[in-house]
């Protein structure tokens, strides 16, 4: 994964999410499943797109699945991955 700061990661995720949801204001901390038109299939394709664009593996067997449902949770997770890769 390229070196990116947390705000950059957050913006990139917001952009990927924004391409997939109806034109609604995005709340970073809210569940995308509950507050946008993304359904379960939409969330899965979003995760796959994020994995491809960031070139990372999101290991759903070890992280809390709930944290994958919000922009904040995804940002936290990808920032941690960037840090461990960078260090």
């Amino acid at each position, binding site marked *: 994964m390229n070196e990116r700061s947390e705000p950059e990661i957050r913006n990139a995720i917001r952009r990927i999410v924004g391409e997939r949801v*109806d034109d*609604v204001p995005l709340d970073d901390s809210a*569940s995308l*499943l509950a507050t946008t*038109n*993304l*359904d*379960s*299939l*939409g*969330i*899965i*394709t979003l*995760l*796959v797109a994020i*994995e491809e664009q960031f070139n990372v*593996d*999101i*290991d*759903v*067997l*070890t*992280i*809390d*699945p*709930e944290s*994958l*449902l919000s922009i904040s949770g995804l940002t936290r997770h990808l920032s941690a991955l960037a840090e461990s890769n960078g260090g």
Partner: protein
Amino acid sequence: MLVIADALINVLARHSPSDTAVETGEQQTSYEQLLDLTLAIREQITRCPAGSAPVVVADDPGAGACATIAAAQTLGRAYVPLSANHPATRIRQILDAVEPAVIVQSDRTAARMADVLPARYPLLTISQQLGNLSWARSPEPAESCVSQIGSDIAYVMFTSGTTGRPKGVPVKAKSLTAYLDVATKRFGVRPGDRASHFFELTFDLSVHDIFVTLLGGGTLVVIPAEQRLLPGRFIREKEISHWFSVPSAADSLHRVGALRPGVFPHLRQTLFCGEPLRWPVAEAWQAAAPHSRIVNLYGPTEATIAISEYVLPRDGSRSNGLYGIVPIGQVFEGQRGGVFSEPDAGAQPNRGELWLSGSQVISGYLDPRDGPKAFAADPDGSTWYRTGDVVERDGDGLFHFVGRVDHQLKISGYRVEPAEIEDAIHRAFPDCRSVVVRCDRGKRLGLVAAIVRAGGDGPAASDIREACATSLPAYMIPAHVVELVSWPVNANGKIDRAAVRRQLEDEIAADVVAGQGAVS
């Protein structure tokens, strides 16, 4: 053969009292506690005078719901599950249809249900600490009501209907007994086993979770709602030995690359049911769970949980693969399945609509106006249920799912009648005509509503989704709404649903006119 009325409670008493019956998060309920709770709920239910009227379970999955269901069974009363996540309109439609003797809720769901449940029904609340029961509303009903549901019914499930309201499927105790007789022998659990409780109570596959696990003396492990989408961590951390879910759950794990070899070492049995299981997903699951046998089950709610099975070969062969889908196999012994096709249709003789008959098959809907054509009388006096599923029977006698005779869709295993969604949209926006399809490729996946409006400004996608949310459960709300200028039509001038779907999947711009026909 098992006899369900009274059997479950006796069986609960025979299991080791200190073994865990139900595990929800950190909370563990032993068989002794579950039995005590069942007896306490039963005693309270008997205070409601309404004859054999059903018991409504307005609770999330867990020990309280299990005890309520067991209590209802021992009193010879049907249970009817309600989801606190469903909209008020739908909940009231169901209550009007069943006229229950009592509604049993928990303090987890009470707040969500407070403004929804009509005051005329007695309402019993189970506290989080379990065992603590209190009447939120008097056991004496405000007005006398007569339920048409008799003591021969074990449960009533409501599925999507084509008439614009949910369709009640009453399943008799004898049908449940017939299913459990097969299931406990073939897919049974034993003390020490840890079985998943994946399904919501409003989905009939939850009946399997609860009865098969508790009859066998295993531990029923409730999956938290937020982990259903990607249940891999749950399976590992909870050391689940018996897994049962819709194939979507496996499909999701497969898509994100989580089904790595050996990641589910504790699994010994996996059951899938509710929608087509794709071979690549089944094979990845087998690699992830090398010690598990995998069984693909099939069965509409009308045929009691599941009525056919296909056990996947352990040698990795898929000689029976048709269309990349795992076969639905053969119907259980004692039940009958037949392929019926129109004689003049020129179709292959081994391909047609699957009809089912036998002790597991219901004889009619709660409201006879629902699907009068769904049942056919056999000259021998038995009833056939026309599933609407198109199947092909191969040379080995195995059934393969091919498609539908009608427009019914499946979303995560839930049956969805597009007509019910289209009706909800039309009621909110009379100037809009809509067609709801399921897209499997392209940018818009899942349920998509295409709309064409007669004139003026059309509603925004969010308006349509909000309108649907007032009467439909979440899985029936279209993920996407696309406005078309006009409908593609077939040779008869009718809306061509397949062409609508192809337009949406091919990502043709919403305002491009494909076809010149008018709305039929």
